[in-house]
Each structure stands twice: as C-alpha cells, then as structure tokens.
C-alpha cells in the first residue's frame, strides 16, 4: 500500500513536471508528499501561493498558455455557459489524472455532482472526474483517511457521516483559502468567495481559515399550510406570547398546534431554541454558550427561551405521540392536518412532495420572538448545510478545490435549483430558475432578515454536547426534565467538556 502510494505520487509528480508549471508542481509536492502533521500545515500556504505564482509561470513558459487556449475552445463547445480565459484554470491543473470524488448522495441525489464532474471535464479536456455517490460516508471513508489515501474531494453528510471537526483537528482538511481567493468560474471580476451568500460559510471558518464549504443553503423556520391558516382566519404570531395564545385557539379547534421530528430532537435544539435565545437576548448569550462559558446556560434570556419552548409541552400543544416519530412520520402527520405547525429547514417541501395533499400550500414563517427582545426580531437561521471539503492528504487536492469551484458556481446553482428544487448558497443562484412557492417563502424570510443571522456552533464543535443535548432536549419536551433540569444538565456537560484536556476548544467573538 505504501509502495503503491509512493509510486502514484512519483508518477504524478513526473506528469506535473512535464506539464511545465513548476510552481504548481511545487505546491503539489507539498500537498501530496506529506505524511507528518507539520508538513501538512505547510501545504495550504503553498496552495495559496499557487494561483499567483502559476500566473507568472504561465507567462514565462509557452506550454500552459497553449493548453489554456485549447481549454477555452473546448469549453465554448461543451459547456452551457462561457468561462473567461483568466477564470479557466486558476489551480493550473494537471489534466491526465483521474479525480476521485466521493459524496453523500441523499435527498439531493447525485445528479448535481455528476453534472459538476462533466463540466469540470469540459473545462479541463483530458481530465477524468470520477463521481461516486454513497450512503455511508463514515464507514466507507474513515479507513481511507487513516490509511492516508483519502479521496480528492468529499461531500460529508447523511447518517453516519464523518466527524468533520474531528478530521479538522487531526489535520486532515485542506485550508480552502486558495479556492476562496480564486476567480469565480462564471461571475467575471469576482473571486469565488464574493459569489457566495454572506454568512452561509461562516461555520466552516476555523482560526480564520475556511476549512469546509456548505453546498446547500438552508433557511429554518416554522412551516404551516397557508390554506388551513386562511380558512381558520388566523394571523401569524409575531411574538412567542402571541404564538401561545394562537396555540390555545388551535387546540380548542381540536387540532394539535405543534409537532416536531420527535426522534430527532435536534430540530428543536439546533433550529428553534437558538432563534428564541437570539431574539430574546441578542447574540451575546449564544456566543457565551458556544464558548463554553461558566453559567452561559443560566443567562436570563436562555432560561426564558427554554421555558417558552417547554410551554409547548407543558400546555399540551404538542401532538400526542410526537416523541415516537421520525422526521418523515411527524411531517406526514402534519400534512394530514393532525398538527398545525412544524419546524424545519427549507428542504421540507422537496422531502415531502410525494405525500403532500394538492391544496396544502406549505409556507414557512419566522420563529416568533419577543416584543421587548434585545435581538433583531427579523433574525433567522439561514445558513449553509451539507459540508464539502478537500482532504489535505488526497492525491490531487488542487483538483478537489477546482471541483468545489465548479460545483458552487452560479450556473451549477441554477442547475441545482431547476433539477433538485433546492438552493445553493450562491448569490443570485436561483436567477431565472423556477422556484416553488414554499422555497420562495423561505428565501423571502432570509431576505427580510437582512443579515440578522442566528448562529450556533457548539453542536458542531463538540459532538458530545450535540448528542447529549439531544437526549436532554427530548426529555425536556416530554416533561421528563423541567426547564431548570435541562439548563443544569447542559451547563454541567458544557463545564465538563470545557475542563477536558483532550477536547480541542474553539471560540468565537461575533
């Protein structure tokens, strides 16, 4: 195995040298010849330098220029859009390699990935891009990471995915700065970074460096049937107090006001509770929670938010049996009209399309806030999801970067919106695409927020707090734990993690 790797590296280096770009070869040498952690941190630095240096190389030697010209022609023939010459090949890719991409293929399928692969082959004639859609990223890729032969680019999602932050802590992820600063594929004059929706990639920034990229743009909120809502003549509640009043009305009508994805309490813990905290106390209490500060959970705004969430259970506003349902089961019960509201991200519409009654008209509303709250009452959790990264020890990390550049291009986002009815975190990515009413309502929600984005990191940074937090929240929403018990349990676990010397800590200030 070691011999095999060495062989392929040598071969690859030789090819890189032949293609003429010494700077590119240098960066490749650093990127794929590394086995020690120290050397691997050097790789990103090289990679960052590559675009600049290789531009110089392109001028100095004839070969790259010739190949770039050839690429431009081919691209004009095959691609459904044009690419400016200076945006064609920022990473100076060797073309006679096979790019190894392994991705989770879930609700979005793998069509958009294959499409990206095809475009990448058209942009770089000679290149072969292998796109593999799989179900179990963890069990299938973990051994490859340990063995030091990971793929060139990975889409890490789904059940049994890999611990992204764990990989990061082990030095397995390539710093994506070079990609962020590279020219955009199809938005002339902009860098790749400038074409992404602001705030959508913040959670992938560690110690100032972009370490992974989110492929999907998700807006979280509270879904309901517009038809049922109008028929009953309700007004959408602005504050949580109004919500509770409305719930009482709905309950009197014989329908359960709320349901949620009972077997997955994180829908509430990650996507409802933080918004309540934010609208009540602003950003500060959330930052304290993420930073594992002492008594962060007993902040008055947090206590209030937990109690307000608990009120849904306490007052009997949650559909009976919710705790025993999976996400699809709860969502189906909601579609059946057994419950009025359900919290979810904007994938809901696509996920439930085969079971949605024709006249249902699902739309999303903001999680209600507080009349006297400190946070922006238009605030929303509109973030990126479905992380993609480039393994630092892959055979062709530069090709991995290019894959992400193509995948998150404007045209790819448009393809995604049209074919998968979902949104990529690319500015104007849905331009000209036919967007469903539900999806449009979620995008409207995000634009109303106007940058007031609710952020939460503790679950991503500390997997234990995520897992146990789910257990505790499940208990809170079934009355097993009272709000005070929940707060105490979260705090003591946070304290424990803060003290654990084996856990790498992260902090944020904004």
């Amino acid at each position, binding site marked *: 195995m070691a011999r095999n790797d060495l062989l392929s590296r040598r071969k690859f280096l030789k090819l890189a040298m032949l293609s003429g770009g010494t700077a590119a070869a240098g960066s490749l040498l650093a990127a794929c010849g590394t086995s020690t*952690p120290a050397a691997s941190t050097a790789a990103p630095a090289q990679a960052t330098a590559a675009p600049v240096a290789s531009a110089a190389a392109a001028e100095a030697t004839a070969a790259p220029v010739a190949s770039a010209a050839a690429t431009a022609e081919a691209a004009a023939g095959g691609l459904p859009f044009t690419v400016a010459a200076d945006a064609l090949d920022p990473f100076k890719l060797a073309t006679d390699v096979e790019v190894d991409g392994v991705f989770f293929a879930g609700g979005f399928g793998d069509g958009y990935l294959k499409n990206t692969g095809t475009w990448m082959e058209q942009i770089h004639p000679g290149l072969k891009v292998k796109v593999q859609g799989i179900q179990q990223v*963890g*069990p299938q890729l*973990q051994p490859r*990471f*340990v*063995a*030091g032969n990971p793929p060139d680019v990975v889409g890490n999602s789904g*059940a*049994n995915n*890999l*611990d992204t932050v*764990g*990989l990061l*802590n*082990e*030095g*397995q992820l390539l710093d994506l700065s070079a990609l962020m600063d590279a020219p955009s594929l199809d938005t002339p004059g902009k860098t790749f970074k400038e074409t992404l929706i602001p705030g959508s990639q913040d959670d992938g920034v560690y110690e100032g460096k972009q370490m992974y990229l989110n492929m999907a743009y998700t807006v979280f909120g509270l879904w309901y049937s517009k038809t049922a809502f109008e028929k009953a003549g309700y007004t959408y509640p602005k504050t949580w107090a109004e919500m509770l009043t409305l719930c009482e009305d709905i309950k009197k009508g014989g329908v359960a006001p709320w349901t949620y994805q*009972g*077997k*997955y309490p994180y829908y509430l813990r990650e996507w409802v509770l933080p918004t309540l905290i934010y609208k009540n106390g602003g950003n500060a209490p959330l930052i304290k929670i993420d930073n594992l500060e002492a008594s962060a959970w007993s902040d008055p705004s947090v206590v209030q938010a937990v109690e307000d969430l608990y009120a849904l259970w306490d007052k009997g506003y949650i*559909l*009976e*049996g*919710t*705790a*025993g*349902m*999976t996400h699809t*089961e709860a969502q189906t*019960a909601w579609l059946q009209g*057994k419950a009025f509201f359900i919290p979810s991200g904007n994938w809901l519409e696509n996920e439930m399309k085969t079971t949605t009654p024709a006249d249902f008209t699902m739309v999303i509303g903001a999680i209600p806030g507080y009349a006297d709250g400190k946070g922006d009452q238009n605030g929303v959790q509109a973030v990126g999801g479905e992380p993609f990264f480039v393994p630092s020890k892959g055979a062709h990390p530069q090709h991995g970067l290019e894959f992400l550049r193509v995948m998150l291009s404007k045209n790819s986002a448009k393809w995604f919106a049209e074919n998968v009815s979902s949104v990529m975190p690319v500015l104007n990515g849905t331009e000209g695409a036919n967007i469903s009413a539900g999806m449009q309502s979620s995008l409207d929600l995000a634009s109303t927020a106007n940058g007031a984005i609710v952020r939460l990191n503790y679950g991503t940074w500390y*997997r*234990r707090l995520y*897992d146990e937090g*789910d*257990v505790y929240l*499940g*208990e809170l929403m*079934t009355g*097993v734990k009272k709000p005070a018990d929940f707060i105490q349990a979260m705090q003591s676990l946070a304290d424990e993690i803060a003290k654990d010397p*084996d856990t790498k800590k992260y902090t944020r200030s904004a």
Partner: protein
Amino acid sequence: MSQRRFCGILNTAISLPKAPRGGRMNQGKRGLIVSFLAVPLLLYGVFVLVPYIAAMVFAFTKWRGLSANISFNGINNFIKLSNDSNFLNALSHNGVALIVLPVCIVGLALFFAFLFTQGIRFARFFRITFFFPQVMSTVVVAVLWSFIFHPTIGLINGTATALGISGLKGFPWLGNASTVFPAVLAVTIWQAVGFYMVMFVAGMQNIPTSYYEAAKIDGATPWVLFWQITVPLLWDTLRTAIIFLAAGAMDLFALVNVMTNGSGGPSRGADVLSTYMYQTAFTRSEFGYASAMGLVLLLIVLGISLVSMRLTARDSLEF
C-alpha cells in the same frame, strides 16, 4: 455475521470433551490435524484475529480513528469507563436482555417445538410460518415494526383504540424511555422464536419414539412427557440455545440501531453497549475509548459464557 443479531456464541460443546474418543484412531492423525487446521486458521488469523488484536491495542490509546495519529493513554480509558453513566446505563439494558431473552425465547420455542413434534394439526404450516421472520432482513423488520408501533397510525394503538382502550391513543412506544426497550425486546423475540423452534424440533426428532411410548403406557401426561423425557434429552440443544441467547443479549446492535434511529432511544432508554460503542467510535471519533468498551464487553461475554456453561453443565444424557 448476522446470527450475532440475537446470538453470538453457540455451543453445546463449549466445554471440550475431557478426553479424545477412539484410542485406535491415532494413526495418521497428526497429518490430518495439521492439514485440516491450516487453511481455516490462516483465514481466521488474517481476517479476524489480526484486526481484533489491533482493536484491543487501540483500547489503550487516545486514537480518534480519523488519522494515523495514535498516542497511548495507559488505562485512562478504563478509568473513564468506570465513571461513565451512559456506559452503565447501556450495560444495564444488556443485563435486562440477558434475563428476558433466554427465558421468553427458549420458553416459547420449546413450547411450539414440543407441540409440533406431538402430532398437532397444521404443525407443518405453523412450523414453516414461525420461521419466516428469520429470513427477513433487519432493515425490513425495523420498517415493519416502526409502523406497528407508530403512535397515531400504528397497529397496536389502532387495535387498542378499536377495543375501547383510549389510554393508548397516540402513545409513542418508541418515543417513551420506559417502553422503547421492551418494544425492541418484543421484536427480538418475535424474530428469534422461529429459529430456536426449528433447532428444538430437530433435536426432539432425534429422541427415540420408544421412550414416549413406554412412558405413555405408564400413563404419563403430555406435561410429564415434556419434563421427564423431552427436556432432559434435549439438554445439549437447550444449553446451546441459552448460551447463544446470552451472548445475543450482549449484542442487539442491529435492531436497537435501526429502531431508535441510531440514538439509543429517548433518554437512552434502549441504548445497549454495542450502540453506545458505535456512537462513541464513529460519531464522536473516540475510537480508543470505544475499543476499551469493546474489550470490557469481550470480557463480560466470556464471563457470561463460562458462567452459563457451569450453570447448565449437567451431564447430557447419552442415548
């Protein structure tokens, strides 16, 4: 393999015979032993033992299973384990299964097998039918049963409501900490009874009919026939089943994992060692710590096998 779902160890012969049989058979036995053992042991050593020994070494490391970066951690994992309430919680569920599964499954299987060998009507139909759940994959079983346990549209609550029991309306069997594990156990029993029934039927058919005939001439009732003839003569097979199920109770990974969607259930109400271990190793990337749990599990299972062997070690009747 998947027999581990509900069992792990089968063995009537866990206690090896004290002495070889057949004194005159020794000519050429050395060659036979070597040639018969070489290939299987090679396969077993390379594909099973080497990985397992490696995993046991990991039990003493901080390895996260995400890179080749391994540092030793002494016995710290084991110290941490002794204070881990989730570990003890999971272990206690295995303990419950250890009692419930052998009693229920062996009891039912024995009952059915006895009936089927006593010339009951439609025995063949029942015998074939009861084995059906065995041939279904765990994914299928889990999907079926999650519909049966479903709070609102589920079969159980639907039947209860139809019978006028309104207390169960919307009751979340898999969403309540005190019912989720019994639900898992019920499915395990549902699935495994047929397997043991077939095993017992096979054993019972080897019991000479003359024994029953003689007893019946003496006026023995079916009850007496069962306890005086069937059980003693089936002892080897019963032991097999009990030891098998005891080890199965220490596993339970597949069903718990699928029925609780990987979480171990509300309040970890159905978490067992294997699911907690899986979560620790793969979602929390604490591979070293999970391996330590594996090692402890290994010791416990070995202990249980030895104990259940001792407890059932009454001389099986030769006939």
